[in-house]
């Protein structure tokens, strides 16, 4: 009978997370003095639909929590309650809490309700107009004793919620007496199934009372005369047990009562009584239970505000590891329509060509060529449209920053304004997922190190409020993301001193401004005087650069002391397609990513120097560039051993330039990247493979890898460090 709801869970989670996103961004927009009814409505709507769908799916904890949220929002919406900044803080915390709960549910873990019950209590306090308690709860430094004071005089609803919360985390032995209707079996209910389900909840002990079973002669085989007594030891709430008897509760006689909770060990506390009459014992128990629950609750209560994000984070990371394998994206309907149109055109072109082919003679050659051109045009457009499906506006990544800046600026005591530009700029979903963390790092850095405190800013003659601008735009086949702050900029002297100290550069080395700014991307480089929990450990910038380079992108910094810094990230729009230069080495064709090619030339032998030991260096204008012989590295039979007859392709990764010796340059074309790892393994110097027009496979060179290989190769052969040191610079 029952429909398997779990198939809709993924959709539910996606929608709920989206709803939370809406709530968060709307909350950040809210101005307490002048509440915009549309904003508050959208928050309300989001909360309401989360509540609705979570109760549909049986996530009672979430539904219950959102219900309280909703009550407050409703009052604000109706204008019967003035929205205070504290309320906004509380609502934002609730968003975090809900996100944690949902992530736990998604990963099919048990939900920790300790945090939500504290928040529920805070909301109830507000709803009943108990201001001071609100304060202590909204910045949860309240200890167990404070909570129990609040609890003692608490409303029935809140203590009910608390009891449920306690029931969630504590083991209770329930006594269930099940006197089924005589027609139980006739209505298609199977007691065994119920017991099995009960047994899934915890430890179950069933005793059957067969006293009412009539004589065999009188017994009708379809009647049920048995009575069962059960003892179920479980951590699940009573509602879960009731749910199992949902189908039989109308006809049968079922009584469920808690006997002895493990935590109390005392006499039986029957829930009904404690709801109607909140005796001191049960709330105190639950208050004690709250700090006693594992890690997150304890840290929330103890460490104050800073612990908040941490409490929800472990759950979030665990969730992303497990449950979210089948991710999906939402695509705008016009993109799909466009695709349908293009496919239609493709079909028309195909039938046109088919017709042409069936009665072809030389006179129709021109028509054939036109048709083929049309086909090429269609295919290209189709390819672009399909790629566009994977593209999402960067606002998905940007949207996390308003909240982050708000929290951090409070924590750091700085006044910061965040400007987001080009939020609609689209980029590939995969790229977007991978660029998130580096961006967070850069923004945190800008907040922590870049921008000064209001006092310092006044002293420097700048407005008190610092500005951070995130700007995204397209440029050629790339997307550019800029992180601009108007803070103090990079301190040249400090960086130099630190670099000398670390031995990254020599005592008397003279560096240009650009080179100095490059130094911050070195591993272990931080000039922050103090390591804060925001940043300053020096593990960041090199990781940021590496992550970006893994995406075939680059990062640069421009900074003017006293005026601010600009970090510029350049990324390819997609990882699936690459503009490639086809080259020949011996009898094999390889592909070099076009982005990394600086220039290709015929070498002038007078500019090639043989450095002692066999490594060749080529002088290109004022640079000496090491030469890598591809045939040597790949063990391919070359067409010629003579450099003068080969071609050089100068490629650049990071700041390292090398010249690759190739036998021939073929055409340039867009290639679809196929993974070698799917069926084989990572090959040194190869980033992937693609299929050429004639159906053969061609391998795509991994320049970073190649430089590394050449470095290792040369070093092991003759100890020459020229190439190796270049690699390190990259």
């Amino acid at each position, binding site marked *: 009978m029952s429909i398997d709801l779990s198939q809709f869970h993924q959709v539910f989670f996606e929608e709920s997370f989206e709803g939370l996103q809406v709530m968060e961004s709307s909350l950040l927009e809210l101005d307490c003095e002048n509440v915009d009814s549309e904003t508050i409505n959208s928050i309300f709507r989001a909360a309401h639909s989360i509540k609705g769908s979570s109760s549909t799916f049986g996530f009672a904890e979430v539904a219950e929590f959102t219900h309280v949220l909703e009550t407050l929002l409703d009052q604000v919406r109706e204008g019967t309650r003035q929205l205070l900044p504290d309320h906004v803080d509380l609502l934002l915390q609730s968003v975090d809490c809900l996100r944690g709960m949902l992530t736990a549910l998604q990963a099919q873990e048990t939900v920790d309700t300790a945090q939500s019950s504290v928040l529920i209590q805070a909301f109830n306090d507000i709803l009943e107009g108990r201001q001071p308690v609100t304060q202590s709860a909204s910045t949860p430094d309240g200890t167990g004793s404070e909570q129990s004071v609040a609890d003692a005089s608490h409303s029935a609803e809140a203590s009910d919620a608390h009891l449920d919360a306690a029931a969630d985390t504590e083991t209770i032995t329930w006594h269930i007496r099940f006197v089924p209707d005589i027609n139980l079996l006739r209505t298609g209910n199977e007691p065994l199934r119920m017991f099995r389900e009960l047994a899934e909840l915890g430890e179950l002990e069933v005793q059957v009372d067969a006293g009412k079973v009539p004589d065999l002669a009188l017994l009708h085989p379809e009647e049920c005369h048995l009575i069962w007594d059960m003892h179920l030891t479980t951590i699940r709430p009573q509602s879960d047990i009731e749910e199992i008897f949902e189908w039989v509760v109308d006809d049968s006689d079922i009584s469920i009562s808690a006997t002895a909770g493990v935590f109390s060990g005392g006499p039986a506390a029957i829930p009904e009584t404690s709801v109607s009459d909140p005796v001191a014992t049960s709330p105190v128990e639950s208050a004690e239970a709250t700090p006693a629950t594992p890690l997150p609750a304890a840290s929330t209560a103890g460490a104050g505000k800073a612990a908040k994000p941490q409490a929800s984070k472990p759950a979030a990371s665990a969730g992303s590891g497990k449950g979210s394998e089948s991710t999906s994206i939402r695509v705008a309907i016009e993109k799909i329509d466009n695709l349908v149109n293009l496919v239609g055109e493709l079909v028309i072109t195909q039938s046109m060509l088919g017709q042409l082919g069936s009665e072809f003679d030389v006179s129709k050659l021109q028509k054939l060529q036109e048709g083929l051109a049309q086909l090429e045009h269609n295919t290209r457009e189709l390819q672009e449209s399909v790629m566009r499906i994977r593209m999402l506006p960067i606002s998905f990544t940007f949207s996390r920053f308003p909240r982050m800046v708000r929290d951090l600026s409070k924590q750091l005591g700085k006044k910061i304004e965040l400007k987001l530009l080009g939020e609609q700029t689209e980029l590939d979903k995969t790229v977007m997922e991978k660029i998130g963390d580096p961006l967070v790092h850069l923004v945190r850095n800008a907040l922590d190190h870049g921008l000064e405190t209001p006092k310092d800013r006044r002293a420097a003659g700048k407005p008190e409020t610092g500005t951070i601008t995130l700007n995204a735009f397209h440029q050629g086949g790339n997307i550019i993301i800029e992180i601009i702050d108007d803070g103090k900029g990079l301190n040249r002297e400090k960086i130099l001193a630190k670099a000398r100290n670390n031995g990254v550069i020599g005592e008397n080395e003279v560096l240009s401004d650009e080179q100095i700014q490059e130094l911050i991307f070195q591993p272990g480089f931080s000039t922050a005087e103090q390591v804060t929990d925001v940043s300053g450990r020096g593990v960041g910038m090199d990781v940021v650069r590496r992550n970006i380079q893994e995406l075939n992108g680059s990062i640069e910094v421009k900074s003017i002391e006293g005026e601010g810094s600009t970090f510029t990230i350049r990324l390819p729009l997609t990882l699936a397609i690459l503009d490639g230069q086809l080259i020949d080495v011996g009898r094999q064709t390889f592909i070099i990513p076009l982005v990394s090619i600086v220039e290709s030339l015929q070498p002038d032998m007078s500019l090639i120097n043989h450095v002692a030991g066999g490594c060749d260096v080529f002088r290109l204008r004022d640079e000496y560039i090491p030469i890598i012989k591809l045939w040597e590295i790949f063990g391919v039979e070359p067409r010629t051993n003579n450099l003068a007859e080969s071609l050089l392709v100068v490629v650049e990764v990071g700041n390292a330039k090398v010249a690759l010796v190739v036998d021939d340059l073929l055409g340039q074309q867009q290639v679809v990247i196929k993974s070698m790892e799917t069926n084989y393994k990572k090959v040194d110097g*190869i980033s992937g*493979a693609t299929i050429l027009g004639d159906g053969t496979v061609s391998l795509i060179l991994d320049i970073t890898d190649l430089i590394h290989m050449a470095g290792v190769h040369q070093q092991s052969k003759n100890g020459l460090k020229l190439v190796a040191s270049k690699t390190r610079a990259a």
Partner: protein
Amino acid sequence: MNAAEDRAYDNSELDVSGRENDQMDQYLTFIMASEEYGVDILSVQEIRGWESVTPIPNAPSHVKGVINLRGTIVPIIDLRQRFGLENVEYGPLTVVIVLKVATRKGARVMGIVVDAVSDVYSLAGDDMKSAPDLGDHVNTQYIKGLVNVNSKMVILLDINELLGADTIPDVSINAIKELKESQH
């Protein structure tokens, strides 16, 4: 499809004869250096003729290269070289058996180059004799078992062991001979 149905049919036959615990498995056999080898037919994806491959730089010699199998990049392994047998020119009979191999990192598709495809046999579990211990110098973990079909010995290969592991098993023509002698 047919293979599965056949097997179901075979099983029901066996039920009557009282050998209900036996599982009939079908094996595709192929010839290499006049020996017959068998692989589980359920792991065979397709059989194709030899076509030129794109070599992989610095790959072990038994990895011939990669081919384009309808948009997927599939590595091709020369089983002769993998077994340390002498190389032969690829001829018109040379075939590539495309196999689905279970590895620790999930299912992979690989092709093996063999001399020729031979036959399909249905074999019961107890027809199979486990590979004898041939001492330290012969690695037999990739051999699922040996079986006699029409008084010929067929070596059943465990392709998951053979192609899943990245190491090259130490198997030479002598080892096969030794294996044969121990059978008789």
